[in-house]
């Protein structure tokens, strides 16, 4: 199609490429950030969903998203085991430390056989941890160049030997013995929480209420309520994402506006010719808007390619997980197209209002 719109896009490659990159960056930013938040959130939720103990018994505030403390006596396990409706209990230390692709990582200290039995976890290679310097990891972590026999640095320079790989993934990706973490944290007889599995015939909520009555002053929660999504755990994440989206829209609009503004200045004479040919203001505005929309659409496609390609490469190199949703993809598409259209509107109106005689005389 030999239209003014397509020919301008084709034959002004530098302008087109710069504009496309501007829109694409905005779209890619939205997709990557929201994809990362969603990916990590889903990952945490998926791992949490494999924890089969229905109740978590802990001290108030001892587990946060990025911190935890071992301040609960393991003696509670005996008391909990005696409560009606409880099938089994197992103490866990959740240790959160600075590391990994997110800036923090998690390590669980567990009584392995007990914990594995309760949660239906099996060793698929090697064996469970026995000594203080032994660790077992899930398949995802093992794929990141951590085979059985390799070592992991967890406490500063302290090396842990990978002795087994377990499945399915559940909670922290690495697990050591409870004694090992108690030793390292100098917290003998302590844990972060006790995981409680109720009998099949019992109602978890009723059992939780019973525990609360018998052991007041502690925190009794259903597991499904504890491991909420990252987005819910960090209240300002949603605001951050919305600000990011707004910034991306502004960037897209500004880049397109600057590019179209420059183009209109270059093409002042052409606008004059259009006016001499009888093109109305509406026609001129619509031609420029169509050009901006075409550029934005190309930018949109490039942006999605950058987001998917970039996300894949980042995942391969850092292990960060991206999960793209249709809602955010639609938002990114609207940002790209609407941003481009809004950005082009001022230059388009300016072009439509040019004096035809002056425009025709423009050198």
């Amino acid at each position, binding site marked *: 199609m030999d239209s003014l719109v397509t020919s301008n896009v084709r034959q002004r490659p530098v302008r087109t490429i710069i504009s496309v990159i501007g829109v694409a960056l905005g779209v890619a930013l939205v997709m990557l950030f929201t994809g990362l938040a969603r990916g990590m959130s889903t990952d945490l939720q998926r791992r949490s969903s494999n924890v089969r103990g229905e109740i978590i018994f802990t001290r108030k505030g001892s587990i946060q998203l990025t911190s935890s403390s071992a301040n609960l006596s393991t003696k509670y396990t005996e008391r909990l085991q005696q409560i009606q409706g409880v099938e089994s209990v197992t103490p866990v230390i959740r240790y959160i430390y600075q590391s990994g692709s997110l800036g923090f990582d998690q390590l669980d200290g567990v009584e392995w056989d007990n914990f594995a039995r309760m949660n239906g976890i099996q060793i698929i290679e090697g064996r469970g941890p026995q000594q203080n310097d032994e660790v077992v990891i899930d398949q995802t972590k093992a794929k990141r160049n951590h085979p059985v026999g390799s070592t992991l640095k967890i406490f500063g320079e302290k090396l842990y030997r990978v002795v087994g790989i377990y499945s399915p993934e559940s909670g922290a990706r690495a697990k050591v013995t409870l004694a090992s973490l108690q030793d390292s944290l100098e917290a003998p007889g302590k844990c972060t929480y006790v995981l409680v599995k109720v009998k099949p015939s019992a109602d978890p909520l009723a059992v939780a209420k019973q525990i609360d009555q018998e052991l007041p002053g502690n925190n009794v929660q259903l597991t499904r309520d504890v491991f909420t999504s990252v987005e819910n755990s960090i209240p300002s994440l949603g605001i951050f994402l919305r600000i990011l989206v707004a910034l991306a829209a502004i960037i897209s609009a500004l880049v397109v506006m600057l590019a179209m503004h420059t183009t209109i200045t270059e093409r002042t004479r052409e606008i004059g010719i259009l006016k001499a*040919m009888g093109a109305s203001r509406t026609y001129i505005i619509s031609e420029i808007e169509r050009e901006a929309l075409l550029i934005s659409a190309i930018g949109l496609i490039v942006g999605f390619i950058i987001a998917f390609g970039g996300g894949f490469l980042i995942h391969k190199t850092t292990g960060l997980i991206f999960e793209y949703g249709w809602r955010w993809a639609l938002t990114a598409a609207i940002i790209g197209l609407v941003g481009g259209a809004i950005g082009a509107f001022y230059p388009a109106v300016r072009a439509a209002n040019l004096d035809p005689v002056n425009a025709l005389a423009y050198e």
Partner: protein
Amino acid sequence: MTMAAAQATTKQVAILKAEKLEKTYRIGKVDVPALRGVSFEVEAGEFVAIMGPSGCGKSTMLHLLGGLLTPTSGRIVIDGEDLTAASDAKRTDIRRRKIGFVFQRFNLFPTLTADGNLRLAERIHGNGSGDAERRRDVLRLLRLEDKMHHKPLELSGGEQQRVALARAVITQPALVLADEPTGNLDTENSAVVLNMFQELNSRFNQTIIMITHNPEAAAACKRVIQMRDGHIVTS
């Protein structure tokens, strides 16, 4: 039969009427008169040259007739429509339907082929698919059939001006306004383009008003209007 149609059967119809046209530019705090009460008529099918020295008001006249400028006073009627009483949008509409422009510098769209330039004119005119027969006749007349897929920079000056001429007449305007159409051409190409103007005028009864400095170009026209200092001196 309407009165206008009845009159048309008995005498030539004035396609353009300019009455007491005045145009004064304000430059800083000084008023500079460009046209000082110009009146004339052009009948359908006429080929008129407007000549005169630089600064005599020729270009201002052409811009007024094309609705690109509004006069300070006076009246312009094109094909029965009062250009001076019209709003800016209405003037644009009259220009779109009734007027074709040919410029000294060709003013083709460089990113479009010759065909693309013609189709753009048709789209603006609101005739998306165009009149195939008219199109074929114009292209044959202007000997452009084999140049339609070339971009302006791939064409000679004479060819570019022929494409510009084709673009101006493809939508069958009542009036073609040409601003020094041979000003950027050598003698040979000027003769070819003038010949094309003449053929368009005689074959399609196309009304043409051409501004020119070139006496040879003026000689190709049926009538010459001489201007000086914002006045018509001979018509």
